[in-house]
């Protein structure tokens, strides 16, 4: 009863909006799907998702389709939330070593990665086609204190808010790749010293003179802004944890591929981990690590690190991890809701639930099967990609 009244109200509303606005945003969309992977409320078989005004209005087995709604018949298909690539560098340059690492100075905390983003680049289209709807656009790992990553949606066609966060944190790198022959630091110990020095100076910062670098680092030191720390090998992860402990940082470990060896320590500190891509060419030994980490209680989100690695298809990481010990549900969560929570956008993204953005991916099979392919991608209720049949 209540439903009906609500629906009629919607019909009136939507029809009035039809006159007021142009384009299909005002059109209510009803997607019938064979399987809906909500991520928060389990899997719904033969259900419907109602999309209105870019948001998920309702989802369920018997969610009622309002009159005038455009129906997308995806029965037999799988729908999941748009995937979130927790760390990548797409849309930055034609050259892989181009715009993501500004290596002229070891400390580049005031640089904003978004300034270099080209949303029309080829690799952005590639990511979309693979089902990724939101990314954390990040600097690389070649600066001990790098720039500011951003969280953006991959649909910039209309003037919606595709930038979810311009400054999502500050990037740090404790990997050996941040060492350079002819620029400080040249050694690991020098690297650690430099990072600590910057944090110490930020702590002591009084804020009188205009210093954007110190200012943003002060926010990190005050735990207002997360630190995204690149640390892959165990010794790098150990260094990261030591610094996090010392400065009481709000932090996320990036590319902590060997984290399973110290998973208990990571879990104890509630440190989430953005996991590096798993490739078909990865060693068995390495494919098992993600599962081990998750089983020790570490929250994982997958990242493609594209175009630094060949992986633009984020799903492959989840599929391989699931094959080698990560349980399926966690694998899916690590593509969606986990990333949303880590990046602080879980109020809007990461699952198919009422009130969240209508960022959806439609596949012709189980998302964790390599053979399944992405057929359609929606962002804010708009079809931004549709697979053409040959």
């Amino acid at each position, binding site marked *: 009863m209540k439903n009906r009244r609500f629906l009629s109200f919607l019909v009136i509303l939507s029809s009035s909006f039809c006159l007021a606005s142009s384009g299909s945003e005002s059109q209510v969309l009803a997607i019938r799907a064979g399987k809906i992977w909500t991520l928060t409320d389990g899997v719904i078989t033969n259900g419907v998702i109602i999309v209105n005004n870019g948001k998920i209005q309702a989802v369920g087995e018997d969610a009622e389709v309002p009159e005038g709604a455009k129906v997308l018949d995806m029965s037999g298909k799988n729908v999941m939330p748009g995937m979130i690539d927790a760390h990548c560098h797409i849309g930055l340059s034609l050259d892989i070593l181009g715009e993501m690492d500004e290596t002229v100075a070891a400390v580049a905390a005031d640089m904003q990665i978004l300034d270099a983003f080209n949303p029309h680049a080829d690799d952005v289209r590639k990511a979309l086609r693979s089902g990724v709807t939101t990314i954390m656009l990040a600097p690389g790992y070649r600066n001990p204190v790098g720039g500011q990553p951003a969280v953006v949606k991959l649909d910039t066609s209309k003037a919606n808010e595709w930038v979810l966060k311009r400054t999502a944190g500050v990037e740090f790198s404790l990997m050996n790749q941040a060492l350079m022959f002819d620029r*400080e630091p040249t050694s*690991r*110990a*020098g690297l650690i*010293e430099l990072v600590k020095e910057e944090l110490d100076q930020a702590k002591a910062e009084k804020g009188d003179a205009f210093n954007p670098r110190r200012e943003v680092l002060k926010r990190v030191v005050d735990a207002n802004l997360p630190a995204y720390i690149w640390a892959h*090998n*165990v*010794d790098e992860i*150990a260094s990261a944890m030591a610094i996090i402990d010392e400065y009481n940082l709000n932090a996320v470990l990036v590319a902590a591929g060997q984290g399973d060896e110290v998973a208990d320590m990571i879990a104890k500190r509630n440190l989430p981990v953005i996991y590096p891509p798993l490739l078909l060419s990865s060693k068995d030994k390495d494919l098992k690590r993600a599962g081990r980490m998750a089983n020790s209680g570490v929250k994982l989100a997958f990242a493609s690190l594209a175009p630094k690695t060949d992986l633009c298809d984020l799903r492959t990481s989840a599929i391989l991890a699931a094959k080698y010990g990560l349980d399926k549900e966690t694998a899916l969560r690590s593509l969606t809701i986990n990333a949303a929570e880590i990046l602080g956008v879980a109020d809007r993204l990461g699952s198919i639930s009422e009130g969240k953005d209508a960022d959806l991916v439609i596949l012709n099979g189980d998302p964790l099967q390599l053979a399944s392919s992405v057929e359609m991608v929606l962002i804010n209720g708009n079809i931004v990609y549709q697979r053409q049949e040959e």
Partner: protein
Amino acid sequence: MRIYVILLTFLLLVSVFVAPGRAEVTAIKAGKILTISGEPITDGIILVEDGKIVDIGTGIEIPEDAVVIDAGKSVVMPGLVDASAAAPVRGDLNEQSSEITPTFRISDALDPQSKALKRVVQMGVTTLFVSPGRQNVIGGLGVVVKPTGKIPQQMIVKDEAALRIVMDLDSTEGNRIPRYQAPTTFYYRRPGTRMAIIWMLRKSFFDAQQQADSEQAEDPNLAILSAALKDEIPIHVNARRAIVIRAALKVADEYGLKLILQECTEGYKMAGQLAERKIPVVLGPFYYYPGNIGQYREGRKVNWNNAGILAEAGVKVALASGGQSGAIDILTAATFAVRHGMDRDEALKAITITPAEILGVADRVGSLEKGKDADIVILSGDPLNVTTRVEKVILNGKTVYQQTSGETS
């Protein structure tokens, strides 16, 4: 009534399975135990509990539930101590952006997964001194570690164990003296000569003294040097040739420093003086012939019996691998030192208790005594025999290496 029986049974069962955790005791029986701190023990027993040696001698009672390692006719000695080891570190061993880097802590760069660590354990080495590289005049702070642990913090026995100073010409390698061109990298810097090296050293100590006397804001680099001046941090100086050793002694006299000499290839020329001043010496790597070895421009007059001559004069001598990953077998170093004239007992001490004393960790390692760490090496025969194999290595009471039965293939 029955309920009491059930309860009692239950309690008994619980007590059996949840017995108060007494740490497991290990007993090692061996035909010959070289304690290094005293006379060798024949047919002795070492009791280990909680990673420490709790008792050692003959006729010791072995607790019933102890794990027994029967080493039969094998020879047991303390885990070896390498006072100048190949660094288990990834990346550059020096911060190249400056010549004087006292705050550089090599412990920040330790890599527990280093292959060097895994290999060195198989040679019987259980304690290592890792120091910054040789490219800087004042390289920074070294650390004493054991080849164990998942993260660096678990490896460390003593951090900030010594300050490394290199007075050989190594630090001039790669320095491009700016002459006519504008510097494009920080390698365009001095020093290029030994005069400059010594000058930089003097200046650094001088500045440290000045800072200590003044009210200025503390420069952390100078703070470390101040601590070294006050003898709070031991100083290791790398010096090969006699003239460099002499220069080191001069700077030491000027600033009242207590030194430990590393490498000391021509130390035999001044054995008496070194003994008089009580300067301990860490030798290594070993060179058979003089000349310009490697990229260093200095020639050295070598004496194969450097260790023997120094030890006989009364100098405390440690035999180390000298940071060469190919020379990790310090048992062989000791064997050859004896071949060339060093006293047997001195040679054994030179790879155990002497380096432990030099590094300031002799309270924990270097000999088999009650209360020390259970770092034990079991050998197939006399340690100073080239056909002797390392059969087993125990570190902190746990077996970390065991030779695979039969020959290795």
